[in-house]
């Protein structure tokens, strides 16, 4: 029996008029894997991800997320994924507790479940005395970690993280990745977009997008070997040069 797949995309394409934002990308993500989705700004990462989470209809191609077809089973996909975006993480004018209550409620969790889970999160992050504070008073690092906890609050199979560590200091970034590892060990699949090349090293496998196409796909070690590079920065630069 083949290993179960969390995400499989085949020739997935999105065109806006004449412009091809995502050009026939094909890749798979295994269950429990941390998959890095890399690329420069404007390479098409976000567009590709938006198709997978049901915010955009693809122009052509096939994809399955958590085993469900992205054309026909969007409702089922929605129940099985979590999403954390770079632009918005939490409602600033709600308290820590209220944010968890809200997102738990949105995903149809029962009050007792929400309470139990929220207590767990608060204990894990050690923010007991902050739980009735409005989120706007929290330091950015705490906010990002809380946002991640909220994105997986309803225990999804896959969590999509869109530039989750933007603007956060290196220590918090490190802690953030530790949280991702912990969740991956529990079986959650993480699909992470980033443009920090050092973060690429943390991923089990990754793909690099250039101009809407996937130019490289493999483990960090494989990619470095393939392109004869010392680190991911070099891998990325070589790929970009090939293009031009």
């Amino acid at each position: 029996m083949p290993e179960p797949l969390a995400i499989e995309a085949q020739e997935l394409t999105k065109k806006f008029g004449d412009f091809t934002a995502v050009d026939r990308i094909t890749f798979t993500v295994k269950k429990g894997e941390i998959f890095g989705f890399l690329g420069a700004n404007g390479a098409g990462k976000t567009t590709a991800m938006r198709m997978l989470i049901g915010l955009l209809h693809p122009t052509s191609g096939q994809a399955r997320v958590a085993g469900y077809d992205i054309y026909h089973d969007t409702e089922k996909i929605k129940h099985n994924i979590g999403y954390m975006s770079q632009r918005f993480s939490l409602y600033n004018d709600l308290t820590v507790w209220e944010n968890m209550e809200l997102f738990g409620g949105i995903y149809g969790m029962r009050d007792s479940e929400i309470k139990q889970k929220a207590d767990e999160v608060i204990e894990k992050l050690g923010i007991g005395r902050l739980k009735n504070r409005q989120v706007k008073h929290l330091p950015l690092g705490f906010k990002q970690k809380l946002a991640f906890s909220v994105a997986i609050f309803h225990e999804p199979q896959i969590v999509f993280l869109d530039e989750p560590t933007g603007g956060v200091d290196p220590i918090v970034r490190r802690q953030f990745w530790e949280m991702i590892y912990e969740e991956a060990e529990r079986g959650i699949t993480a699909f992470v977009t980033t443009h920090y090349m050092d973060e690429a090293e943390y991923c089990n496998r990754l793909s690099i997008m250039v101009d809407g196409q996937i130019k490289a796909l493999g483990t960090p070690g494989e990619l470095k070997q393939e392109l004869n590079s010392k680190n991911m920065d070099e891998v990325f630069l070589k790929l970009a040069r090939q293009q031009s």
Partner: protein
Amino acid sequence: MQELWVIITKEFKHIFRDVRTLLILFGLPTVQVFLFGYALTNEVRDATIAVWDQSHDVTSAKLVNKLLASDYFKLAGLPQNYDEIKDGFRNGDYMLALVIPANFAEDFNKGQAKVQLLLDASDPNMANILASYTGGIVNNFVVQELGYRPPYQIVSELRMTYNPELKGVFLFVPGVITVILMIISTLLTSIALTREKELGSMEILLVSPLKPAIIIIGKVIPYMLLSFMNALLILTLGLLVFKMPMLGSFLLLLGELLLFILAVLSIGIFISTRTSSQQVAMMVSLFALMMPTILLSGFIFPIDSMPLPLQIISNIIPAKFFIIIIKGIMLQGVGLEALWQPTLVIVGFIVVFTLASVRSFKIRLS
């Protein structure tokens, strides 16, 4: 159902934690009602008048006394020639001047007395009102002095139906309710919805299993409730403080109120589906909606005296129809049998804007 409740409570929290929204919600209506009720009124009180009495006899003195005894006028000068009158107008000392020629009493007894009335018509409405007030008092005086109506004079008896005292507030209360509902329902909902887009939280909500309709309905219900409460607040102020009559069915009024709120909410939702920033939503709500509402709804300027193109344009202003309805119910005491046409128009607005919103919401997603 649980999901809807989650969104509604969240929205109430947003509203009650934002001072600016609260001010618009509760400060604005109260201030507006008192402003329009007390300050912006067409009624004349204590208008400044100058009298140049060249006759100085008992009859002229009686006439002047009668004018000043009314609440309408206050003596502000006793000029002795036309130049002085002119200076008085220029200095803004008075708005009208009464000139009583010499031999007034003699002429009066012969039945051929004349007085001259000079008015500062730089404010034409005011000048007209003052002229008719003065004319009325002078006519009254003639009848009183002679003891009978002079022959060969046509006196038209006026009876102001529905608002016998010509109280401006009777027009302003319906107008203010309408404008406030436009502001709260359209402005605040379009801002609340575009805020989520701007923040990016709309995306998070759309990725969740929530149905888009639930998101919008959940966000809009709090504004609907608050709009309704506001309308009741303004109505109560109108009835208790300004003694507006309530001749028709209160229940019908509430029903129509609800319909109008739905109409303006659907416009607010439509605006938010077409704009992506709070600023733009606010500009559109304020300038594309508020100005025409205030100017073309018949709230301040009568629609019948507008040029034809503007009269035609006024038909796309929902507020116009609601003002007709609310005046009909409160002041004329009519029921649905007389108001079904404007009611139908408002229902039309709801249908059109709801469909248009659904359509552009779908387009945005694909």
